[in-house]
């Protein structure tokens, strides 16, 4: 394994060629459709109830009270966000929801504080996502961060495995280093993934800004840029995991199955295993599952740290895959 032989021009050319031809026509089209359908369905599921609420309100009062809509979104979204962020268990979320429907318990010493009227005030992360930033966009980002790693394998599973199977790589191997092919195709895949993410987020943001109009344009645009960067970076380690698998097996189908099993299996093991053994929860750190929500954290140290963790995972996975690709029979 010799990184000194890598050639930036070759990596760039391979990345462009891969994006233009291979990704666009094959796995790229499939991913584009899956990602758009998933991303826009999520947006639809999140935005539609709000639009219905606005419509009902307008019918009843003749106008839309954006403040009331905003408060309703926060009230509904808070327990869900807390659960998704891992700040509260499902039991705690249920109890909290029940407590909000009952009168305050004056015997509780916490009720003496200013946060007494809203017990969830103890959690600045949720506040940040729901109150300081456009809540609908935050909700969509959280769901995309959970779902897109499953979708990305449809794009990334076939970075080299198809050409290993068809021996198509042999036309390239005497013209450039194996490393240039490997990293070039990773970059092409990452660029395509980023472009698709941009399309999804721009579409959703424009819709929220032009049709729903409950958030200021500047707040929407700023949070959209942050969310886009977070999701784009989050995809990198998952693409890199697929790179390892793609470089390790000779069958594209097997590569896809293994990618699904790896990405989903880590999370499933952590969640189900964690119910029985607490230490099993740590398995989620084998992939960025344990860090990724911090990309949307209010503290710069958290989202920067999560971003760096994603890049670190990407680097480690890429090197593992490169070591395999460099030494195997092609």
């Amino acid at each position, binding site marked *: 394994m010799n990184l000194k032989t890598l050639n930036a021009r070759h990596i760039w*050319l391979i990345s462009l060629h891969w994006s233009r031809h291979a990704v666009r026509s094959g796995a790229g089209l499939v991913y584009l459709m899956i990602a758009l359908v998933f991303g826009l369905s999520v947006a639809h599921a999140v935005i539609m109830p709000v639009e219905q609420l606005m419509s009902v309100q307008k019918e009843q009062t003749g106008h839309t009270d954006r403040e009331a809509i905003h408060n309703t979104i926060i009230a509904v979204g808070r327990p869900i966000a807390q659960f998704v962020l891992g700040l509260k268990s499902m039991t705690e979320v249920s109890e909290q929801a029940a407590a909000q429907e009952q009168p305050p318990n004056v015997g509780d010493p916490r009720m003496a504080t200013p946060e007494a009227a809203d017990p969830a005030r103890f959690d600045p992360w949720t506040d940040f996502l729901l109150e300081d930033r456009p809540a609908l966009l935050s909700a969509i980002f959280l769901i995309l961060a959970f779902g897109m790693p499953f979708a990305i394998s449809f794009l990334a599973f076939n970075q080299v495995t198809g050409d290993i199977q*068809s*021996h198509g790589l*042999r*036309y*390239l*191997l*005497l013209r450039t280093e194996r490393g240039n092919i490997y990293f070039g195709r990773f970059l092409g895949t990452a660029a395509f993934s980023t472009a698709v993410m941009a399309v999804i987020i721009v579409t959703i943001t424009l819709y929220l800004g032009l049709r729903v109009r409950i958030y200021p344009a500047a707040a929407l645009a700023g949070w959209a840029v942050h969310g886009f960067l977070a999701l784009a970076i989050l995809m990198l380690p998952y693409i890199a995991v697929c790179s390892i698998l793609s470089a390790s097996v000779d069958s594209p189908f097997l590569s896809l199955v293994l990618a699904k099993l790896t990405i989903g299996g880590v999370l499933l093991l952590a969640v189900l295993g964690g119910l029985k053994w607490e230490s099993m929860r740590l398995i989620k750190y084998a992939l960025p599952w344990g860090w990724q929500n911090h990309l949307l954290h209010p503290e710069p140290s958290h989202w920067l740290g999560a971003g760096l963790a994603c890049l670190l995972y990407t680097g480690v996975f890429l090197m593992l895959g490169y070591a395999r690709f460099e*030494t195997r*029979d092609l």
Partner: protein
Amino acid sequence: MALAVSIKGLSKRFGHTQALNNVSFEVPSHSIFGLLGPNGAGKTTLFSLTANFLKADSGAVEVLGIDTRYISRLQGRLSILPQDAQFQRNVPILDQPVFFRRLAGRTRPQAQDEVLHTLDLVGLQSVARRRVGSLSHGMVKRLGVAQAFLGRPEVILLDEPTAGLDPANARQVRDLIRQLQERTTIMVSSHNLGEIQELCDHVAILDHGRLVLAGSVDAITRSNREHNLGLSRPLLDAELQRLLAIRGVRSIERTSLSAGKLNHDARSSEYLAKLDLSAEGIDQDTVIADLLKAILDMGITPRKLTEGHSLESQFLEVTGRPPTSASG
């Protein structure tokens, strides 16, 4: 003798199959070197190891004095037509070789000019904008040949370059190979022994992963050089004995061409003359001249004299089977 390729003790195993077993030979510079062997003999494996597609279990390959484990040092100097490697089907024909030339540092216009010229050599310029998926098998093969000829490689490996081509296109490819010989060393694998004999000056024969014979075609066939003779009438026994007495004539057998193969036939005036040129001071031209002179002296008119399949006989002798037998 300058060497273009040097193969030393090369072995490769796939599971339980020993694909190559301690193979060593050398390919002289500016030669056209034929690699022969039945299916599964290890020809493609040897090419793949030479191009570093596969990693050898033991042994080494040097091309132009460079160990192919450091294959990047040979970029632009070594090219290959791999067997059964597929181009990207959805990509226009022109785009793929243009991409290859861009990797070699050419600008897009330069690359396009070079590629169109090379596609013209193999008769594909008119379909350059079509997608690879729309091409026939023969056209894809010619595209593979074209990409191997791109640039100015010093060594070209051609794995079955004429397989699947019609006779006219196969001839065109052979002519291209001959034209390149002045500046390039070419290794060709083929089942077509006639083609290899016509094209190559050196050969190696593999069988079951082992090298069974290597050397110049001239040296390998020297002890058994075959020529087909067509005469105006059959030879009498006495005449036959007189011809067999000529120095360098090993045997003369009466044959007839049937179903594309030479068979023994007592009524035929077609003969297969086998020459043995291995003795000191004997050369082919002298023996043939003596043979023809004797025939003319007998009042017989030679109507045909063509080179026979000396290499095929040698191949059969060392492998015990025809080149396309066996599978794997």
